[in-house]
């Protein structure tokens, strides 16, 4: 097992390094940090701008690869450089990473879990109302852009709150500022803030997972081993649970590693629209300001999470399917 995992992890790390290099070069080419400093009134002298750029490691007179080398050397020592305002990228990252991880975690779990359940349900009720309803709903969700979906959800929450007469679902920030109380009331507060962004991120996943899971389950319902399970004396429900579900999840692991990427993109919109101070909103702000180091930090984060999702998918496959173990 270790013999297989090691080369896989080595490959992932190599891929990570390549991805960081590419992000750095592309970000340096596409963004113009000089504009951020020049864009002040009164316009500062060129020498002052050069000085400020050099201070945050974005001196555009040194070649980009040299700048990358310098950045990478410090990054290896645990320092991801300065933001364009001179702050520490590490500090920003520390503040924001928890916010994003929470959103992504909840989105992934809800997306995969509910998606699989919905898919199985649709397959078992094939050709009947639940199946048709699921089909229509999934295609609706998949065909609406994430930001439209987010705004629709926000609108929905507003009228929901209005009907109830007080604010149950919150739509700005990830917690109420200065909220004090026991940890249960803290949790309730955080949850009420989490609902909308998590739903924005998860709905797309649920829709696509459920389609794949439905197809996988339909294949399975016709499988010989499910008939064997019935012949042994299991009821259809138990047969599906014990002999079907795990087998049908095997092809889903491949999809899981790809699906995570879509989820990540969705989270960028969700954070921006619902005012979550996470990695996604940081990325958008940094890109506007020409903050190369911050953009690269977000890219690094996304590369790590995507690769981790891939490793997780592989591990899941090994757990689920004895045929791939050797």
């Amino acid at each position: 097992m270790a013999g297989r995992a090691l080369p896989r992890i080595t490959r992932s790390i190599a891929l990570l390094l390549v991805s960081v290099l590419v992000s750095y070069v592309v970000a340096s080419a596409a963004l113009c940090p000089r504009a951020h400093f020049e864009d002040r009134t009164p316009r500062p002298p060129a020498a002052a701008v050069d000085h400020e750029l050099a201070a945050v490691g974005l001196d555009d007179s040194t070649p980009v690869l040299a700048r990358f080398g310098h950045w990478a050397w410090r990054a290896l020592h645990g320092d991801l450089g300065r933001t364009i305002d001179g702050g520490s990228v590490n500090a920003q990252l520390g503040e924001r990473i928890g916010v994003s991880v929470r959103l992504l975690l909840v989105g992934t779990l809800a997306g995969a879990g509910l998606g699989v359940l919905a898919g199985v349900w649709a397959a078992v009720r094939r050709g009947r109302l639940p199946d048709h309803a699921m089909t229509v709903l999934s295609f609706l969700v998949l065909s609406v852009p994430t930001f439209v979906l987010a705004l629709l959800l926000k609108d929905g929450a507003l009228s929901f709150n209005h009907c109830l007469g007080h604010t149950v679902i919150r739509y700005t920030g990830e917690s109420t500022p200065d909220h004090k109380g026991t940890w249960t009331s803290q949790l309730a507060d955080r949850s009420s803030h989490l609902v909308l962004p998590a739903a924005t991120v998860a709905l797309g996943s649920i829709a696509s997972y459920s389609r794949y899971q439905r197809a996988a389950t339909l294949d399975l319902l016709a499988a010989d081993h499910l008939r064997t399970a019935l012949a042994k004396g299991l009821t259809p429900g138990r047969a599906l649970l014990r002999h079907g579900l795990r087998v049908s999840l095997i092809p889903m692991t491949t999809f899981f590693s790809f699906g995570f990427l879509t989820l990540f993109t969705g989270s960028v919109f969700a954070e921006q629209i619902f005012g979550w101070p996470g990695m996604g909103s940081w990325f958008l702000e940094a890109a506007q300001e020409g903050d190369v180091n911050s953009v690269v930090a977000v890219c690094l984060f996304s590369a790590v999470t995507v690769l981790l999702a891939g490793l997780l998918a592989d591990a899941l496959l090994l757990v689920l399917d004895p045929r791939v173990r050797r």
Partner: protein
Amino acid sequence: MSTVLELRDLHVGFGPEHAAVRGVDLVLRRGEVLGLVGESGAGKTVTALAALGLLPSRATVRGSVRLLGTELVGLPVRDLARLRGRRIAMVFQDPLAAFTPVHRVGDQIGEVLRIHERPRPGRRSARQRAVELLTELRVPEPQRVARAYPHELSGGLRQRAMIAMAVAGRPDVIVADEPTSALDVTAQAEILAALEDARAATGAALLLVSHDLGVVAGAADRVAVMYAGRVVETGPAHRLFGNPRMPYTMGLLAAAPRLDAAHALSQMPGAPPAPGEPVEGCAFAPRCPVARPECESDDPVLTPADGAPARADDGHLVACLHPGVTAARTAADLYPTSAPPAPRPPGDVTALRVTALRASYRGRRAVHHADLQVRRSETVALVGESGAGKSTTLERIIALGAPESGRIEVLGRDTARLGRSEVRRMRGRVQIVLQDPSATLDPRMTIARIIAEPLEAQRAPRDRTAARVRELLAEVELDPGTAGRRPPQLSGGQRQRVALARALAVRPELLLLDEPVSALDVSVQAGIIALLRRLTSAPGSPACLLVSHDLAVVRQLADRVVVMHGGRTVESGPVDAVFDRPRHPYTRLLLSAVPTLGRPRPAGPPAAFEEAAAATGCGFRARCPVYRGLPAEQRLSCERDLPAPAVDGVACHFPHADGGMPLRGRPASKGHPPVQ
């Protein structure tokens, strides 16, 4: 004996127009074996599934299925589940697909106990009981098998585990649906023995469903023959096989190739009605040589054969409006037969020579040392179990490239030295026909285009093409009107004829046949065998290399035979010599394992057939009865030295002397009388 399972007037339909089973009556008594035979589409499997209430929900079931007095038709799913596994259990055809791939075999066997026994046994004790069940069925290394996942076991072991699962609940009825069809002959014999063991241990009655008459003849007490969704003849096995009365049964039995000699095969005209095709009167009437006008309209019912008084369900019953007509006749009087061609002197020119071939399949060495030779106007058969390297050898020959090691000479040319354009020209001289014609013919092309394609590939003049296609259709005995149709509109036999016509279009000098009749039903197979006999014995016919696992078919078609085991040629020679006086212990094992009409199943405990790849010495010694009987000092040569490769001989340190076959008595001393 009391009745355990009773089917009365069972009808099963899929949709309003599609009747799969049209009124079946069957009775199974405690402890007996009832064989249910028929060709594909006859409704055997549907009947078997109905006995467990396992039909898909879209099936409509009418009539009655009573298990130990309980009516199963219309029984709620929950109550059915309580009976399944405990009162009635099933063994499926393909054990790899029938086991759940992600659970250990022992747990899957033990699950039956955990479902039905109260108090519910724990996981550990269920697993322990699974090992006991495997031991009971004489599975070698039962602990290891119980711990294994299904994909880690050989087909034979998997099927024995499946049988252990079926007997776990000590059922009163076991239904086995084609339990040996997915297996090699050697594993087949062991599965039949294991079913017998299982039955003896539990006292269960067995409903054995098979298309293989030999399997049923060797195992069943009583037999029911199905045709187009009905039982058309039933009776005690020895009477039915010895003296069949329904014209269909007679034709079917006389169409089955035998292992002991190349013989005349009866050819029934036409094909059975497609499943769901509406039937009026006797379904067999369109193919029946003695049909009268009323057969087309009146429904025959099962009546005692030969007017003999018989207790219902026990005697010999025939569903024929004129059972007397066949009384004094044999199948040879009813159907045209194709006699084996007269033996020919083999040509002296070599068409194909494979020497010391080594080849890999998917990164694993599949062929270690293959030697074979095919001369002009000769048919050579390559036989062996799956995994013996037959297909890989064939694949290397048709590749017309350089082998990893060894030498392939096709029509006098070393394939390693062929240039690109020479390979293209050579492809016109070597053709191949594969097992499954529905997979090898493009369903969107017309038959005429399919047959014309090799002509176009070889740049034959276009104006001659249409005439050549007509000629070829006549040669493979197809109607000229077939040219405009497409493969899905044809039956399996017709499709294989098209595949043959395509191969013959360019007048090849070497024809490779990979299991050409294995996918076909017996009655259709007889026609293709007859056609192949004619095509390969005509003057100027191509040399043939036939790959087949079916030794009875090989006996009918081949002049010489090459036996492969574990990637090596172990014996070769003229087919009569090898089949009648096999010298290599592996050849003897193969031949003795074939279940054949007119010969009782070989007795004795099954040999442990899991074989560890031996690093040195003879690769067969783990299974070899000769090795087992040798004194230690003589065993040494089997363990140390690879037997010399066989060129028209035998690769064995201790081959049997050239005389007779002591492993089995022939002709059959007891059992069923030979069929004619």
